């Protein structure tokens, strides 16, 4: 069998498995979100009773800016880590978590207002059902991302994150960018088209 090694190996630069795995996960998640977005769009204006989106929804501009700019900060964080700046990485990573946390806080506030002021729950009407499930599904992904970001933050405070972990950090930041891109879609569907 040694002659199987005797063949001159062709050099192949194969991609990092984490990157490919995350790309696959993003493809799969996109399909899930697509179905929820289709359901949302299909049911726009089909609620039999109120409240309607026009009556109760307010566009969360500030929190959207927070989430979208967190994409920039996580990008800067990984770039600084690649250059070997531990402090810079920590600072921007922490900022990313704060921005993501602000976004979730915004969602929580909005839901609280919708439930207690406007009386809109997931079982009130079709709008409630589709709204809470789509925004909730996205919020769930943000929370999962935040959890992973916090774990990395704790590990790096313990001095366990260096340049050797860069490729894994990159995979996590891919996920975070995906969550942000999904928000652009959800935002457009819920707050622009859906109203």
């Amino acid at each position, binding site marked *: *069998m*040694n*002659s*199987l*090694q005797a*063949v*001159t*190996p*062709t*050099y*192949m630069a*194969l*991609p*990092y*498995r984490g990157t*490919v*795995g995350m790309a*696959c*996960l993003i*493809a*799969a*998640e996109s*399909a*899930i979100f*697509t*179905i*929820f977005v289709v*359901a949302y769009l*299909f*049911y726009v204006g*089909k*609620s*039999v*009773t109120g409240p309607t989106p026009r009556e109760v929804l307010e566009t969360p501009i500030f929190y959207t800016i927070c989430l979208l700019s967190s994409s920039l900060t996580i990008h800067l964080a990984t770039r600084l880590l690649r250059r070997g700046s531990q402090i810079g990485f920590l600072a921007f990573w922490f900022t990313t978590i704060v921005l993501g946390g602000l976004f979730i806080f915004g969602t929580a506030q909005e839901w609280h207002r919708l439930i207690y002021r406007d009386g809109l729950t*997931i*079982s009130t*009407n*079709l709008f409630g*059902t*589709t709204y809470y*499930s789509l925004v909730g*599904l996205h919020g769930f992904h943000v929370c999962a991302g935040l959890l992973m970001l916090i774990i990395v933050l704790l590990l790096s405070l313990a001095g366990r994150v260096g340049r050797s972990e860069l490729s894994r950090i990159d995979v996590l930041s891919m996920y975070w960018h995906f969550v942000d891109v999904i928000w652009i879609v959800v935002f457009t569907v819920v707050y622009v088209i859906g109203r």
Partner: protein
Amino acid sequence: MSSDAMAIRGAAAVYRPWVETLHEWLTTVDHKRLGILYILYALLFLFIGGIEAMIMRIQLLRAHNDFISPQVFNRMFTMHGTTMIFFVAMPILFGFANYLVPLMIGAPDMAFPRLNAFSFWLTAFGGFLLYFSFVGGSGLYGAGNAPDVGWWAYAPLTSRAFSPGHSSDYWTISLLVSGFGSVATAINLFATIVCMRCPGMKLSRMPLFAWLTMVMSGMVLLAITPLSAAQIMLLIDRYLGGHFFDTQAGGSATIWMHFFWIFGHPEVYILIIPCFAFISEIVPVFSRKPIFGYPVMVGATICIGFVSVSVWAHHMFTIGMNSYANSFFVLTTMAVGVPTGIKIFNWIGTMWGGKLQFRTPMLFSIGFLFQFLIAGLTGFMLGTAPLDWQLGGSYFVVAHFHYVIVGGILFALFGAFYYWFPKITGRMLSEGLGKLHFWLFLIGFHLTFDFMHIPGFLGMPRRIYTYEPGRGWEIWNLISTVGAFVQAIAILVFVFNLVISYFWGKEAGNDPWDGWTLEWSTSSPPPSYNFLKIPSVASRRPLWDLKHPEDPDCNYE
């Protein structure tokens, strides 16, 4: 090499307490062991699903039979369908892919071994959850146990009003859980094929098995997830009072059908593409010729992958869509036949002029080719909207998709069992019993499913628990039931063969079929981490190059 292989087999023979062995199997992250676990698990469910099928066939044996009640009949066809698709076909194909892909691309293991174990256990517990419904399904209502809403669970059957208790919830959650398992496995297989190939294994040199598994994984990512999304919506409806599929509150029952079939039709291709992969490995070896039209095969598979995600509503012609939608889905359905036809021609082209060896794997492959072609032709009939209005929801449909699943998928799977069993266990399956299995199963299959088309034409609807005498359906149902018993006997022959060959079969050696792909270069069964040294390859048939240094393939590719 051989002495190393001996040493490894010898090491396995040392006596160890069974608890330790069990612990090793339960905590394993080795792709070969997980592959075997998947396959054994699927065989268990094949047995259970088969018993459910037999119960239904006995009930339909004659008119006005009262072997089981209508309620039990509903549970039987729901459980039979769900079990066979999600807990037999999917895990068994994942099992083979798990076992073979790293071996074929010269990798020591999958890209994410622990994720691999996690996916297997998700799938396994999904299946147990489904069957736990027999115990836990009635809930506080005493409202019947196992799910009885059919395997596609159309709304509003699944709403609280029509499905009290927890039976539908067991169905939903078990599919959700096993769906996550499938997605994780697909991610794993895809990453393995992209990132773990051995030196020289360019994409253009990969065995077709790896190529087709990659396409299948891509389809799992995009097609299983819509089902998961729909199941989440159904859970929201049932537990949080949502209205997705609640027609009283403006929801739509049709959209559940769309979501289900956006998953449901690609699922057929997810199941059949690995079978194409088996055939693409088996037919060349037993024709003693390289596969005909390798690049075209790859292209056709990718083409099937793309087209098959746009044909789903041909399952829904009878709900009354508009004529544009009907025409679109008729045309795409016709279009998907083109790449499939190309593949069939290529397999025949491979056999053409070859030195055919009619060993058991080859017999099953030829059975596959013939029956899959017929299944495709009845598929064309059902894919034509006007004819579907006549035949939709009848036994013709049942006969058609069993032709695909039993005549196509199961035959290819049996071929794969006979072909790779020597690699997995180190022993050959008995050829004599194998041929008996093949002929019995072939006869039983044709008795059951050929004649099942006819009551469909005569108007017998599917999913009825009994029928009136004097409609001309009795004789065909009788023949189908007889055929089902012949198939059951054939399966028993197969299981008997598996057991006796595992203990007393002929020693296989590394390469019993004179194969060409990398799995035959290592010992049978392969050692941990598969290869003593990671191989490197220069053509699509590395073992041919090795055995024929005077005329290697790499000179021509």
